[in-house]
């Protein structure tokens, strides 16, 4: 799975658990701070703030421990996914989902299906425009038949909701 260069991987994997810990501290701390703004209440009537605050603090603490023990765990980091950034793939996948949302709302199922599959397919470097369009057309025909006619999903075939 060593698709990124070994050097690059080493340097990231050494810091990986620092980042991992930091993320947990961030999420946990954030949750605790927001949570503490809700009422804490008493044991009999525990307020809505109690659980989030406690959980946030625990998560932040675990984050600290993860970061703290980073040095010991780091060498075991070979199985992580490749770190080579793949902006084309990522952008296309994100855009495909966003376009689905927009088109399903305003242009209907046919447009949403076609564009979603087409854009996502373009994210793969091996797919040509033509292949992507063919795939999209195929999925659109199948998808519309299945979801509009068999399952009656509540998206109009053409036009906005």
């Amino acid at each position, binding site marked *: *799975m060593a698709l990124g260069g070994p050097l690059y991987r080493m340097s990231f994997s050494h810091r990986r*658990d620092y980042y*991992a810990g930091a*993320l947990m501290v961030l*999420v*946990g701390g954030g*949750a605790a701070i927001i949570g503490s703004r*809700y*009422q804490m209440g008493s*044991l*009999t*009537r*525990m*307020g*809505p703030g109690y659980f*989030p605050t406690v*959980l*946030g603090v625990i*998560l932040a603490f*675990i984050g600290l421990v*993860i970061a703290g023990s980073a040095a010991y*765990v780091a060498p075991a980091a*070979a*199985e*992580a*996914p490749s*770190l080579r950034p*793949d902006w084309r*793939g*990522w952008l296309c*996948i*994100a855009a*495909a*989902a*966003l376009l*689905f*949302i927009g088109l*399903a*709302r305003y242009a209907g199922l046919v447009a*949403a*299906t076609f564009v*979603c*599959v*087409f854009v*996502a*397919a373009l*994210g*793969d*470097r*091996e*797919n040509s425009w033509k292949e*992507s369009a063919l*795939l999209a057309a195929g999925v659109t025909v199948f*998808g519309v038949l299945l*979801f509009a006619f*068999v*399952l009656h*999903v*509540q*998206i109009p075939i053409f036009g906005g909701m």
Partner: protein
Amino acid sequence: MDTGFGDLIHGFGVALQWQNLVYCLIGVLAGNLVGVLPGMGVLSAISILLPLTYGMPPVGAVLMLAGLAYGAQYGGAICSILLNLPCHPPHAVTCLDGFPLTKQGKGGTALGITMMGAVFGAAFGIIQMIFTAPYIARIAFSFGSAEICSLMLLGLLAGSTLAKGSPLKGVAMTILGLLLGLVGQDANTGVERFTFGIIDLDDGVELVALSLGLFGIAEFLRGVNNTAPIDTAYAKLGVSDMRPSRADMKRAAFPILRGTLIGSLCSMIPGTGPTIASFVAYAAEKKISKTPERFGHGAIEGVAAPESSTHSSVQGDFIPTMSLGIPGDAVMALLLGALIIHGVQPGPRLIIEHADIFWGLIASFWIGNLMLIFLNVPMIGIWVKMLMVPYRFLFPSALFFICIGVFAAKNTLFDVGTTLFFGLFGYLLLLLRFEPAPILLGFVLGPRFEENFRRALVIAHGDLNTFVERPISAVFLALCLLLVGTQVWVRLRGPKTRIPTTLLETE
């Protein structure tokens, strides 16, 4: 209460009438179909078919809708095992070992074992319903808030070491899941937590969106332009070549039995549906295994236990619904709704007043499950062929199925956005070597834990002793202590044994 065979034979008489056979077939077929589709849950399928049942006789309507509910479970494991895509929450945990099996070329075997687990689990659930429905209903009544709360705690503790990798990170993910489960309107006070003023989050994060984001979209982000191609040579094999070997069956036999028992236990406890059952079954199987390090790398037990548990729990869920008129989850509530529409009053007298419905339903369970086996076993070969579709065509199509499936779960596009968000976040977690599976566990158990914890304390007027004074709750708490105790003991004693497991995990 007479639970004689005479009634059951009468039930078969009802279920074997040709119209009822057709309704049952339609139900299981439709269920099987939505089961394979990501996100399109039983709930959306039943709500689609519900209006069609108005014109039907009540027996046919109930058989059909029930067929949907259990039929969907058959399709659910297919995408989990072959594509690492948890189409339905109960089968999310099946991904953990199912997909590694596929990568090793044993996807067909895993599906075969799934079918065996399904049959056994379902059969057990049905038998349980025939003989013990009235008694089980009574067991359900001994579970109050304190008991449910202690049980959830046990589930959380057992489950945080669910995934492979660092246990500490597993705990962090469980807590992250618990926090995500808090999003939305607090049931006790109506206060909105972590909703950031977005109305769509008032009901919390949608489970389907969370799991398809974390496992589906995050996986696409990782896999795009970067897939080690799965060895597809075996995909050309015939069905007979994929029959599980004797050794596999032997290995799966006890996990199937244990999974089934856990599933049937979960179905007795109100509000504990198949999702919790399958997670608990997996966690338990990993806990008692002599070789827990194999889990997550293609252990057949990790497929057998949760799958049989799901099926027995789904069948068992019918018990409180039919015998008390108290639905265990949203799907069962819908079924009750269907009964009411047809003028059938659910409740303890249903078995007597509408014997044709109750016994007809049970008989149709047998028939329906039989149909499902005949439908699905030959299909395994066809499903496995799906792996021959190149990834570059597969993921764009799957992305679309996820988008529309998530939409259909609650008819809202907001959830599609949520899915994307969790996809991106999940990918970040993968990069940082977190295993996201325990997030789902925390997310599923957390809200029920908090709700019952708070309620138990209100009922006990703030006295924490309520958790130890009530015997069932005390037993669960003792098990929690035992679990943590052994964990700590192993940890303190075993720095030597730890190294090989770490090595194993990194392969």
